[in-house]
């Protein structure tokens, strides 16, 4: 029975290792926050946005599993197989792990799938009215080198206007992303109004920063050095609760501070 328990523990540890591996390997793909944003609204201007960043996470799960399988096999070979049901348990647990892994990471694969279907739809729509195909070079570093733009009926097809159109569509795509970001911007149509909202948002955020820094200055008689105690607590809480909503972390921090408050009082 002891050996069975040991094997159970080992599989559990490997499950955790797999999870930590997944967590470690995925963040570097995020790059900067803008590209992370690009991955989320999958149905926005698909043909112009970069696609290889989305396919990369797709490759990750497949690369992690072979290594995990190998490690599991080595352990089974090292242990003397005196009880066969235990081995069967091992083998059974491992596919379950991979299944759960698959289920836990549906997001990277979904946008790619939806993007490919949307691309096909758009192409079939355009095909009925397309006359010519021209490829336009794009000198923006982070996007595809060639943007295939189909000329629609009755529109000029010289490179100049095609470049103009590609540029305009790029800008519109980015504007849509901005629309998603700023609250209350989804229903507004037209670039000018959206820009208006964005400007208001940026201004209000900047004003809030000013106001909050004034409040902070008013609270402390001098800028406390003990702030780092507060902040280390917040960091700990952030690490454990970062998936929760904003309000929740606020209350959690407050509870933690109440326990620390006596220490700060002695400093005052």
């Amino acid at each position, binding site marked *: 029975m002891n050996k069975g328990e040991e094997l159970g523990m080992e599989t559990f540890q490997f499950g955790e290792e797999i999870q930590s591996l997944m967590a470690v390997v*995925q*963040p570097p*793909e*995020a790059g*900067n*926050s*803008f590209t*992370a*944003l690009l*991955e*989320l609204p999958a149905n926005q201007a698909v043909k112009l946005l970069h696609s290889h960043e989305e396919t990369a996470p797709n490759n990750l799960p497949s690369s992690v599993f072979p290594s995990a399988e190998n490690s599991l096999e080595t352990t089974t070979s090292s242990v003397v197989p005196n009880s066969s049901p235990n081995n069967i348990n091992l083998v059974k647990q491992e596919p379950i792990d991979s299944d759960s892994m698959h289920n836990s990471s549906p997001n990277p694969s979904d946008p790619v799938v939806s993007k490919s279907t949307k691309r096909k739809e758009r192409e079939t729509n355009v095909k009925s009215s397309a006359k010519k195909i021209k490829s336009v070079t794009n000198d923006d570093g982070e996007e595809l080198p060639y943007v295939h733009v189909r000329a629609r009926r009755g529109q000029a097809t010289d490179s100049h206007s095609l470049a103009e159109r590609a540029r305009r569509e*790029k*800008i519109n795509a*980015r*504007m849509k992303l*901005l629309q998603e*970001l700023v609250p209350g911007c989804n229903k507004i149509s037209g*670039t*000018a109004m959206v*820009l*208006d909202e*964005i*400007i208001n*948002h*940026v*201004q209000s*955020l*900047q004003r*809030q*920063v*000013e106001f*909050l*820094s004034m*409040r*902070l*200055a*008013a*609270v*402390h008689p*001098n*800028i*406390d*050095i003990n*702030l*780092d105690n*507060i*902040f280390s607590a*917040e*960091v700990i809480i*952030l690490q454990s609760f*970062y998936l929760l909503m904003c309000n929740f*972390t*606020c209350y959690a*921090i*407050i509870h933690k*501070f*109440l326990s620390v*408050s006596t220490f*700060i*009082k002695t400093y005052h």
Partner: protein
Amino acid sequence: MKMHTSSKLRKEFIKKWVKGLQICCSSKKNMDILERKKKIKLCADIALASAKNETTLWSIALISEAKKDDENKILVDNLLGPESRFKPRMTNRQMIACHKRVRSKKILKKSRHVCQKMKKMGPPKSNLAAYIAKKLVKRRTQVLKRLVPGGESMDKFSLIKEALDYILSLRIQVDVMRTLVNANEVLNQSDSKIYN
């Protein structure tokens, strides 16, 4: 994934902000409220920009603007540490000359535009709505350029991208500051309760 990068940014911002405040506190002992507010805001802004680690244009612009002030320069250098690569690429005089050049170019462009418009008076009037819309958009992009740090030297396309990133980072900054203020409030309340 968005949550992950934003929480990383948040932690970086907090760390750097605390470091900056510590430096501030050690240099001067007594400051009035306005000075304190300025220092707090400055530390927060620079912490936010340096947490970005030179990946975005607006952060670079923000830090180089802060470095222009002599009194802030020391603080900024201390905060960024020895690995800081933000060197003011031009001296002050060159900056002024650059600005003058840019302004005169703009005046030339405008006059040329006006001349061209005078020549083709007909077509714009026929499509009045689009013409007005374009003007509105232009004016608003100008305003946005002024708001986003370093926006004047960006084209329309990268301006939008930078604005997006700037909004995200500003949100994180506001969030952190607000939780700190709330925590302080609660602490003060608990203080008064204990003393009563």
